[in-house]
């Protein structure tokens, strides 16, 4: 029978999580995917790019071999092998996507392969077959547009960057957003000369100003040529220069015309949703990038999980104001909540504590003490408003702040929590002490 309680279009981190949760809670669920299970994140996004970054980080560390007291090889001679790096990355991808497929199968979810065209909110056509559903979740994701700058020059996107065959001498990246910056730092670690064209006069201005300053310095130190107020242009046609466009993403809505005609509201290619991912059509939900709210995988999977509760009548708002933000590089950037400036703008009486990694024992022992932890709290109740971390594993360290803010912790709760020694996360404790005006390991 082609009749389901729930049909989900798209199997990225939004769609497959919704499918698993839906089936777990007793809904007869089908998941439609036209390309690869796992979507962009697993197949061409977060996971392979982080695998490449791991190679680059290892290379960076090996280069410090002598400094760390190792000998026996000429560390300077060690070079990246782009092809083998990619092979490793796709082994990781393979393992993960197979894992997700197994989970879906064990969950009793019907996987339908093909492009889905909704006829109405209840009937979905795939390969000339009609599937009927009570609830429809659209999780079709987003795509980078490839600008048509020049017919002769191949322009890669973050999705197709893996088809670059040989590591280029130089790469020109369009767009200084998170992904543009991540690729810039990655290629720079691999010894590629990097140039970024950003049409705006500022970049990533939503970062806290201390993190932003640190990032600007990092780009300079990595000799990345960030050109602001400059449109993405092709100036050098040499074979050894690659072009990567990470400019604007659009919602994947090309198959949704029927729904749009029936009242599905779309704004700038993104499906309009409320805080519960409900669209303007009853029983139709949009999760993940396609709703354009915050295009991050953990936002997508949070939506995927929460939307099932909403469908089952236990309505839940997505905590969009508590989403961690990560930037992956050799030294990572992570944050949650408000930046210092925003907190002040919103009228909070703000206290700030900042602790440098250079005063942390573990960071010094590891040989990478670049970075800091910055904690922002409001004075009245001591609630933590924002945490900004720059550290080698900042993206892992932010977890404690995320939990803390979810539970509306105060600065005193962090200060009263025992943090193990020696660890990098001690810096969170120290920053809290500092914010309270009672610093321990700095003055």
């Amino acid at each position, binding site marked *: 029978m082609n009749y389901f309680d729930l049909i989900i279009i798209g199997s990225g981190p939004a769609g497959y999580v919704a499918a698993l949760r839906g089936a777990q809670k007793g809904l007869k669920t089908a998941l439609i995917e036209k390309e690869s299970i796992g979507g962009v994140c697993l197949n061409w996004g977060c996971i392979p790019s982080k695998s490449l970054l791991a190679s680059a980080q290892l290379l960076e560390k090996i280069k410090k071999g002598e400094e760390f007291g190792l000998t026996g090889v000429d560390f300077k001679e060690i070079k990246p092998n782009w092809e083998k790096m990619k092979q490793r990355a796709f082994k990781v991808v393979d393992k993960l996507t197979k894992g997700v497929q197994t989970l879906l199968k064990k969950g009793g979810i019907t996987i339908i392969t093909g492009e889905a065209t909704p006829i109405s909110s209840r009937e979905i056509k795939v390969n000339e077959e009609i599937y009927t559903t009570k609830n429809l979740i659209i999780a079709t994701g987003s795509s980078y547009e490839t600008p048509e700058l020049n017919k002769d020059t191949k322009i890669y996107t973050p999705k197709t960057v893996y088809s670059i065959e040989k590591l280029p001498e130089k790469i020109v990246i369009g767009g200084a*957003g998170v992904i543009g910056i991540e690729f810039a730092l990655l290629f720079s670690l691999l010894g590629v000369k990097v140039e970024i064209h950003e049409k705006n006069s500022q970049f990533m201005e939503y970062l806290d100003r201390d993190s932003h300053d640190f990032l600007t310095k990092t780009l300079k130190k990595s000799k990345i040529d960030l050109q602001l107020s400059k449109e993405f242009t092709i100036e050098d046609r040499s074979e050894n220069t690659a072009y990567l466009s990470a400019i604007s993403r659009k919602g994947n809505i090309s198959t949704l015309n029927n729904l749009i005609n029936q009242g599905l509201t779309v704004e700038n290619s993104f499906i309009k949703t409320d805080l519960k991912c409900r669209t303007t059509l009853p029983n139709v939900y949009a999760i993940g990038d396609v709703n*354009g*709210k915050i295009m991050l995988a953990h936002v997508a999977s949070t939506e995927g999980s929460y939307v099932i509760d909403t469908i089952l009548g236990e309505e839940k708002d997505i905590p969009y104001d508590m*989403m961690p933000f990560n930037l992956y590089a050799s030294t990572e950037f992570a944050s949650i909540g408000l930046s210092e400036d925003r907190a002040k703008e919103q009228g909070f009486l703000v206290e700030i504590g900042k602790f440098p990694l250079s005063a942390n024992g573990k960071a010094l022992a590891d040989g990478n003490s670049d970075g800091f932890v910055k904690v922002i709290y409001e004075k009245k109740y001591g609630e933590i408003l924002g945490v900004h971390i720059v550290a080698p594993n900042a993206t892992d360290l932010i977890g404690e702040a995320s939990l803390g803010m979810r539970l509306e*912790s105060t600065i005193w709760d962090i200060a009263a929590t025992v943090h193990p020694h020696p660890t990098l996360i001690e810096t969170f404790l120290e920053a809290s002490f500092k914010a309270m005006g009672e610093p321990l390991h700095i003055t």
Partner: protein
Amino acid sequence: MVFEFRFPDIGEGVHEGKILQWSKKEGELVREGDILATVETDKVVAEIPSPKEGVLVKKGAFEGQIIHVGAIFAILDTQNSSDNSIEESKKPLKEENAGVVGELETSNGFVMPSSGEGILEHDIENISLTSRKSVLATPVARKMASDLSVDISKVKGTGPSGRVMKQDISDFLTTSKIKDKTDEKPNEFTNLDLKNREEKNSNKTHPQTPSLEGALINSEKNSKNFLTTDDYKVEKLSQLRKTIAKNMTESHNIPTALVQDFAIIDQIVAFRDRVNQNRDERISFQPIFMKALAATLRKFSIVNSNFHPEKEEIYIFSSINIGVAVDTQFGLMVPVIKNVESKSIIEINKEMKTLVEKAKNRTITLDEMRGGTITISNYGSFGGVYGKPMILPPQTAIIGFGRVHQTPVVQNGEIVPATILPISLPFDHRVIDGATAGSFLTEFIKTLSNIDYFLVHI
């Protein structure tokens, strides 16, 4: 160190109490647990023990005076020092700040622990707990509750595992504020306190925790934060709404039983169609149903009655005056068609149209709404198959008509389509027995289902 002991929330929705007797004099040393005073509320007579040891510096109210929850009940000098400055602890509140004032005995002997989170302690570090009640709440919510004198145990948590979040505290305050505002009785304490809350709010020291702008984001922010007057509006009850509320509350006190069934009315439908064929002014179903009701009531006069329990008298009426519930823009009104038993269907039809019109433009007189012996609620015209209308006191029954619709029924062993009228009969079980109500409904259905029977009985 001076300790302000505020009148604790003793639960059960009690907001105030009357001091019956003080057990201690000003200047007297009070030990922790000593009874300070006996207080009477509308639900309990409670002895209020002292949460601390100290000298009773000042009583918050005289004997016979009313004291509100959260108001200062007594001021104690906990160190017997001459320094009377009230100290405020700058230290953070502890996780378990459930300061408790022992247990209170209710008037019916049921022992109810007081939650005590309504006490505002200035020196929380030193309070000793005689019992603890733990509430799952976030640190910020606890601090807010303590700051704003909210009893956190009364707040419904919406966070993970029912945890009380700061939003829940502000929602709780908003709700109680609306309640306070609509309360007719002046409530000095709450009004004062609300003023403080509003001031706090206008300082904007604590808006909702907001978002890092995230990558590429056009997140709709949940801007609903702390109390702002934009969050709700207060509507004063109109006189009509007050009357409805009073009648419905009174109705709720009637021990109401309910019986429901349906009548197959295809014959009535056909009859009405025939009648309406050559008429300019069409006859609606209602007058036909009313005639059938009147015919039935003649056989079951007990259903056509008023009950006055205070006099222990039932008034059984010979004339049949049927009230008709009418939805108007001002609220529910019930004009009464009098002497239905002696009027023709055409007359009733006409009279009803006039009265409904008058009710809708509020030109109806009080007399036209008085004297009902039974009422019909035609809720089905708005939707609903079976409902339970509320009896209009002092009447003893109400007839509810559901949505007239077609449905398959079994007749002579075959499934056939039929037009049915769902009927609900809530009745005052003090006056009407179940057997009577059932028989009445059966007779009413018989009259509605069979046109010949109808014609010879009306």
